């Protein structure tokens, strides 16, 4: 045996065991702290996902928000103009396969279309180098709240039984008033095809010289918006939008132009509730062409997480705190719904192995 110090073996053995217990205990406590089990105040993705849960229970097998939707496939035609702002392959002139999902901003996959104010689009554009650009956009021109905590508070207030909950929320997050005004006054349309889809979050485009540009992007529809009253939309049926878009695409592909707005120095990039002034430099970088619609249950968009932080080289996140929070919450939603796939059966025709 190597060294044998001259201390009393029995007493030091006891002290050593205590020391070992302390080392293990401190390590376990540090682990628990890091995991948030000792910090009930921490805003976790599970809390956000939980806050979406309707009183009737979670929509098993479905996305926890924007739960109602329909898949599409098509192409993104880059016109090359985006290359001045970003070196991402997706902006090099050419056609790249696109996969996406029209959806309604509701945690209820069976919500009647006319009951949902916000519409959205999930999009994935793939380039031959194996890179992907994923985005999830909505038709609102700005986000209702300026921070993820504000968003969580909004979810809690929306489901709260306290009659003053909303008033308290507006006090703490006055920016939400603009959303209320939009929800009341913005016209409804009778088609996913007539909606713009706005990225809202600021991202950074990195060009070939390495220079960074803070940008926000939007998809602007080629189809003109035909306003419809909410009552008339309701009369067309609870799932009218899915039927309408499928019918419309059968008649020919639909397109949206992708417009990238570039921030001026000093424009707020960290707050998606504040739209940038209209006069900002913009670049039209390409066209999204939707060629086919597929029902979600068997569609290619079903098991895709339109995580807005899945970005190609040449695009990165900015100081906007939302993409990280969305990525984290979308992941939890994805993990839950893929584990619940049996609750949302695929149909025989398109069943995957």
């Amino acid at each position, binding site marked *: *045996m190597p060294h044998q110090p001259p201390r009393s073996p029995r007493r030091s053995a006891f002290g*050593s065991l205590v020391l*070992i217990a302390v080392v*293990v205990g401190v*390590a376990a406590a540090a682990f628990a702290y890091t995991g948030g089990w000792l910090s009930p105040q921490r805003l976790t993705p599970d809390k956000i996902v939980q806050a979406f849960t309707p009183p009737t229970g979670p929509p098993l097998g479905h996305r926890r928000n924007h739960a109602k939707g329909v898949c599409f496939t098509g192409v993104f035609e880059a016109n090359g103009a985006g290359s001045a702002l970003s070196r991402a392959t997706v902006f090099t002139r050419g056609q790249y396969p696109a996969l996406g999902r029209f959806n309604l901003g509701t945690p209820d996959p069976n919500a009647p279309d006319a009951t949902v104010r916000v519409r959205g689009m999930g999009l994935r554009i793939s380039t031959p180098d194996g890179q992907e650009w994923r985005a999830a956009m909505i038709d609102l021109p700005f986000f209702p709240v300026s921070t993820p905590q504000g968003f969580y508070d909004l979810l809690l207030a929306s489901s709260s039984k306290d009659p003053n909950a909303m008033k308290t929320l507006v006090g703490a997050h006055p920016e939400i008033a603009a959303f209320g005004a939009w929800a009341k006054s913005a016209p409804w349309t009778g088609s996913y095809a007539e909606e713009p889809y706005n990225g809202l979050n600021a991202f950074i485009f990195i060009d070939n010289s390495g220079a960074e540009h803070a940008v926000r992007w939007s998809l602007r529809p080629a189809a003109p918006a035909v306003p419809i009253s909410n009552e008339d939309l309701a009369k067309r049926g609870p799932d009218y939008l899915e039927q309408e878009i499928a019918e419309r695409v059968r008649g020919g592909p639909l397109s949206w132009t992708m417009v990238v707005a570039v921030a001026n120095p000093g424009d707020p990039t960290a707050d998606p509730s504040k739209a940038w002034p209209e006069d900002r430099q913009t670049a039209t970088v390409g066209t999204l062409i939707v060629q086919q619609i597929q029902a979600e249950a068997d569609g290619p968009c079903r098991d895709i997480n339109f995580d807005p932080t899945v970005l190609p080289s040449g695009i990165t996140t900015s100081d906007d705190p939302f993409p990280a929070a969305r990525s984290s919450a979308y992941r939890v939603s994805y993990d839950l719904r893929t584990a619940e796939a049996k609750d949302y059966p695929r149909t025989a025709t398109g069943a995957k192995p």
Partner: protein
Amino acid sequence: MIRQRFTLLQRILHWLMAVGMLAMLFIGVGMVSTVAPKYLPLIAIHKSLGIAILVLALIRLAVRLGYGAPPLPADLPEPMRLAAYLSHYALYALMIGMPLIGWAMLSAAAYPVVAFGGVFLPAILPQSDVLHTLLWNAHFYLAFAFFALILLHVAAALFHLLVRRDGVFETMGPVTQRNELAPAE
């Protein structure tokens, strides 16, 4: 010759990976419990470090198969000897298995797997909700098992160092003990 200590390469790999794997486990539980902006760098580090650990673990396994390990003390009780063997098999299985499970899990979810700030790794599984769920559960529960096993490993190492004082700790110890400088080394 019977080696008194692990080779220098083995000791370097051990301590390097010890730091890496502990960081990995802490980053793992930390990142999944936050929506703060640090979520993104944490998850990026988790992927890169995971791939690095996978590569180091494969090298380490090859080195271990090549050089072996110093013998355990002859007077080590049989249950402790068995625990030592089994826990080391489990540690090797986890340090190779966990990165592979993580990579496979991301593949089954059709996420691009990006490491080291821009290296796009290929998918190692086709997209599948069933496989994703299986791998997610494996990655989640094995992470806690891995951490528990590392704590056990640390406790056992300290037990050898402080209580049994049988030289087992010194075989992997980061510093050379004066009375251990065997002529063969």
